[in-house]
């Protein structure tokens, strides 16, 4: 990872965090009707992983936060318009922020049902293989979701047909109120790779470089035609499951403990140590993010609601 890339990753992480903070404000103030599953605490993982992709690759994101879209380069005002259910977003109010879509950058959308992503990812991989394209699929999902049947069928299917799909589990320890320990038979989800005879790895999801390296390796493996991988990034969900979640099922100590491992300050220190980041640039980046977000919010607030009768559009091609 060169410095340019490191800084770029940092900027996107900051923008993601700041954007989520502002979105939380908007939602709590009742200024947007949508809801959000915040990804605070998982930004480093998502941004670093997506940094390994080419623009033509395909991506299926999980529902945890905005960093996927910031990292991929989707204009943030579009994300806000989708959140607010207005025109000017990516899906004309049809799906809200749970279905941000961006075909130009291979962002295929999302399944409303957890685990719907796995077969879709397999299908995108199938398409790449049949058409002999130089593309890969990166599929994000949470620890809880990996217990769906579709996970097992799809990994098997991809392994058997050697499809170029990288399955990346964001193990944040919680599925709403259920801890991973209580829901999942294995301790490390990446261990499930053995059931599907594919390579994989468990690593620290809050360490940008670990994430980048692990994902990059799997991406290269897939791009070379060698088939799928199952990766697991250990991380933590710092906020509740959704904005407004009372989060009463977790102990304050646990949450506090993980705040001390917030990836952002850790990465900042690291970059500063490497002299990639200095205070002034940090401040600039922060300010930049704030300005971008302000502009994006203003843009969103000026967008019209979709025409009610458009509810009948786009069912069929």
């Amino acid at each position, binding site marked *: 990872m060169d410095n340019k890339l490191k800084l770029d990753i940092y900027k996107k992480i900051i923008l993601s965090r700041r954007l989520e903070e502002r979105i939380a404000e908007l939602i709590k103030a009742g200024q947007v009707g949508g809801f959000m599953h915040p990804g605070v605490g998982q930004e480093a993982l998502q941004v670093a992983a997506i940094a390994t992709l080419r623009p033509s690759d395909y991506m299926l994101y999980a529902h945890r936060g905005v960093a996927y879209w910031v990292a991929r380069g989707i204009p943030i005002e579009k994300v806000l318009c989708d959140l607010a259910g207005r025109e000017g977003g990516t899906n*004309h109010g049809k799906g809200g922020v749970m279905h941000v879509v961006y075909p130009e950058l291979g962002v295929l959308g999302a399944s409303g049902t957890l685990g719907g992503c796995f077969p879709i990812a*397999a299908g995108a991989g199938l398409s790449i293989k049949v058409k002999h394209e130089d593309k890969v699929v990166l599929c994000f999902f949470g620890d809880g979701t990996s217990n769906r049947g579709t996970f097992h069928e799809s990994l098997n299917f991809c392994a058997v047909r050697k499809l170029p799909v990288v399955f990346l589990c964001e193990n944040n320890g919680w599925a709403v109120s259920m801890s991973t320990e209580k829901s999942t038979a294995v301790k490390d989800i990446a261990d499930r790779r053995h059931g599907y005879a594919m390579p994989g790895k468990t690593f620290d999801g809050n360490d940008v470089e670990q994430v980048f390296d692990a994902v990059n390796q799997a991406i290269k493996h897939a791009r070379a035609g060698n088939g799928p991988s199952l990766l697991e990034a250990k991380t933590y969900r710092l906020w509740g499951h959704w904005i407004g979640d009372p989060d009463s099922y977790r102990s304050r100590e646990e949450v506090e403990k993980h705040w001390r491992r917030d990836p952002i300050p850790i990465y900042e220190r690291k970059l500063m140590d490497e002299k990639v980041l200095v205070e002034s640039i940090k401040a600039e980046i922060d300010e930049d993010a704030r300005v971008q977000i302000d502009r994006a919010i203003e843009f969103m607030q000026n967008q019209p609601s979709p025409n009610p009768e458009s509810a009948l559009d786009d069912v069929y091609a």
Partner: protein
Amino acid sequence: MRTITYAQAIKEALEQEMRRDPSVVLYGEDVANFGGIFQITSGLQEQFGEERVFDTPISENAFVGAAVGAAITGLRPVVELQFADFLFTTGDEIVLKAGMWRYVHGGAYKVPMVVRCPSGAAGVGPEHGQCPEAFFMHSPGLRIVSPSTPADAKGLLKSAIRDDNPVLYFEHKLLYATKGEVPEDPDYLVPLGKAAVRREGDALTLVAISAMVPKALKVAERLAKEGHNIEVIDPRSLNPFDRPAIIESVKKTGKIVVAEESYKTLGVGAEIGAMLIEEALEYLDRPLKRVAMPDVPIPTAAVLEQFVIPNEEKIYAACRELLA
């Protein structure tokens, strides 16, 4: 024109479309190496190669969902389910993914896929013999066709493959061996959404779905000898559904029987009934009659299955009652 079977017509459609468009791929359980458990697809892997025609593991959720993923990224997959009943196994992938991916993402993608579903009671019990068109008629975003003749089997499958929407293609198992004239034309297409008037008449409208069509035609012949000229309509598509064709016919005849091999409650006949009350009430001279299965699973023993499945006698009796 040559005469071929319904099964051969399906295969010919697949061959022609796969030759025409390299993005068409075909897969399912046992379809490639074995040629499908109904032997529809034998030889296709040899023709088109393993990349385009392949067998899948027993993973309906994965491979039907994969059809959605493949369709939105540039392929036109044709998935063969071994039994239409397995649509329930893949409920999420069919109803929520295939049917809704385009809509929920604001029209960003189209989902050009076909799921071939062998349907109909054939002595193999309740989970391998349903005709579940009505369930999916209720689901927005899915096109549905049920051909009753070899020519339509070919023409509708080709249209389904060329359609940019997900299409559930119901091929009735007991129709596979039926024969009919089928054009060789590689561009022979039967449009979706257009009913076929199989027999013109004015005494009564008999709407028949899928394998009910040949039975309906036999009933029509019998009634003709008794002096009643009935009209037999084969909708062919359940989505889009050719409502005007049925309404026009009822305006003429004033009497209607719907024959379908599915459960009576909320079957296709229920939709037709509601539609007639809404749009053609003053043309009805009698109440609607539905000839359908009772709301019970399909039993396996032959005598039990025969009791529940609508047959020619039941259709005839329903017509006679209205014609009295």
